């Protein structure tokens, strides 16, 4: 138990500290890297509670895709972060309010579970005990049997989204000047240089 508690505090502390660094770091690239560190520690917390599927999904989806996307955006777009940051104190009260609402909701949700434990009994597909079946296996049990229809339908929806993205954005440009090494190498002084007579004081 002691080891688990130790790891919990390590993960929790690093997660909170790096979350703070995300919003206070001067360099936006550092912010994104701290965000990735936060995700890793949150995944560690999930692992500690036995939710190994969520932990892996967090790593694959958020670190693997979302954070990298952020990094691309930050590095490729010319966003003036100093200007963005200038109004941060002005928005602080609103941000604080959102934080408080989120905290209250979390307390209500967790508290509700403690006050009336029977509320969770109405769930159609309850999670089996961790000792019997792991999360991933339990998900797979229903996802590919009871919910196969919804699963396949989501696949089709994603396929349409992919086709749509390609149809609307992929262009084969015809008037682009591509590098043609053969013509570059085959250039001779006659084709590359033009000799003109310049009269003094007139220019070309």
């Amino acid at each position, binding site marked *: 138990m002691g080891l688990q508690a130790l790891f919990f505090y390590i993960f929790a502390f690093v997660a909170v500290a790096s979350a703070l660094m995300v919003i206070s770091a001067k360099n936006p690239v550092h912010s994104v890297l701290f965000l990735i560190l936060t995700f890793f520690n949150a995944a560690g917390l999930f692992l500690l509670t036995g939710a190994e599927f969520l932990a892996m999904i967090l790593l694959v989806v958020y670190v693997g895709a979302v954070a990298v996307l952020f990094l691309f955006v930050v590095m490729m777009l010319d966003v003036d972060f100093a200007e963005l940051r200038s109004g941060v104190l002005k928005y602080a009260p609103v941000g604080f309010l959102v934080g408080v609402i989120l905290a209250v909701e979390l307390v209500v949700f967790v508290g509700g579970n403690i006050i009336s434990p029977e509320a969770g009994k109405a769930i159609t597909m309850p999670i089996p005990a961790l000792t019997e079946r792991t999360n991933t296996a339990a998900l797979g049990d229903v996802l590919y*049997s009871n919910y196969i*229809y919804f699963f396949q*339908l989501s696949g089709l*929806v994603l396929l*349409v*989204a992919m086709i*749509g993205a390609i*149809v*609307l954005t992929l262009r084969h440009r015809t008037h682009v000047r591509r590098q043609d090494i053969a013509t570059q190498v085959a250039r001779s002084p006659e084709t590359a240089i033009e000799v003109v007579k310049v009269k003094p004081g007139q220019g070309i």
Partner: protein
Amino acid sequence: MTVETLLASLHLAVPELILAVGALALLMIGVFNGDKSAPTVTGLAVALLIASGLWLLIASPEGEAFGGAYLADPFARFMKVLALIGSIVAMIMTVGNARSEHLDRFEYPVLLLLATLGILLMISANDMISLYMSLELQSLALYVIAAINRDSLRSTEAGLKYFVLGALSSGMLLYGMSLVYGFTGNTGFDEIAKVLAGETRSLGVVIGLVFVLTGLCFKISAVPFHMWTPDVYEGAPTPVTAFLAAAPKIGAMAILVRVVSDAFQPVIADWQQIIVFISLASMLLGSFAAIGQKNIKRLMAYSSIGHMGYALVGLAAGNQSGVSGVIIYMTVYMVMTLGTFACIIAMRRKEGETVEGIDDLAGLSQTNPFMAVALTALMFSLAGIPPLAGFFGKYFVFLAAIEAKLYALAIIGILSSVVGAYYYLRVVKVMWFDEPKGEFDRVSTELRLVFGLSGLFVLAYLFFGGPVGTAAEAAAKSFF
């Protein structure tokens, strides 16, 4: 779910499987052969749609599949066949115009196929989750199709507008579904109905119901969720608009009927007043806002808003004759819409330029009498003049409303259809009594076939009406 139940489920869903597997195969053909394979892919897509429709008609599967998420019943079969006909005709109408409308890409028929698949699954949805997923499948494909002419500012604007407003309505639909799930504890339509019948309904369910209806009414473009319709209809390439106005409306109306007369049947008093209001507002706006329109695609957009209002009159009645009235109305509406759009697609000057103004039809009776006669029949039918098809559509829904003692709704509906007659007749007047402004290019055979057949259907509806009515009645029995 065991292997046997899965196989039984798959057997019920064969029409959808044909489309899904076929769409994937066609995508492969297109990807490997490039845009030059577009005509082949279009032909194969039409073949797939026909195969799916034939299977529905011949095998006529019935029952629940995938643990109650999918339902095949006579109502679903009727609406699916209708939606498939709409898709087939819309796809055939693009063949001759694919190049000039920039639709000559192989993705277009594939996306149309996937949208049709979404519509079919939506009609069969018997669970909130499958309803939402199929609705998204259909809508996502439609957003892309609306913007597919990406070099045209109007087409991209139409696609973007459709996407943003559609996303908003999806959000509302999801919010309503989550409330309904929270207050009834179920997502299946039958289970929701059971829970609602057992207890006094809570306020949360009513709020959820309102949001669900909002989301669905957006899809059928009923007032006050109609704002996107004129812009999207005008901006999208005309063959795409023809598709948008037909098959997706059938699907959305079918699922609206199923949601209210299946899942929310026990709280009829709650949804009836909402449907009555939406129906009234759609009929009135459809008839008054269309008067000032000069663009025929915008005119058809307002006309479709109005027609959705008339169809909802039948739904508001909430009885069997009302639902069968809705089915007949949607059948007639689809035929009239496809025919009219075939005429609009044919509005192409000799120089190759497409025109969309109502004035451009001037003197059509002299330049192209066949098209003028067909369009006149369709306009008279849209206005609801007896003995054409449109009249019978309106007759059955108003009859159902009177049976349900919704006198005010029926009277206002009839009055607004009189107002609506004005702008339909204006089109007829322009065609027959104005001086010709120039000739249209020779109309291609498939377009002539479409408006000829739909003109014939509305003119001779007295003969088709019997079988259509019987089929609609059998379909409506699914709910009562």
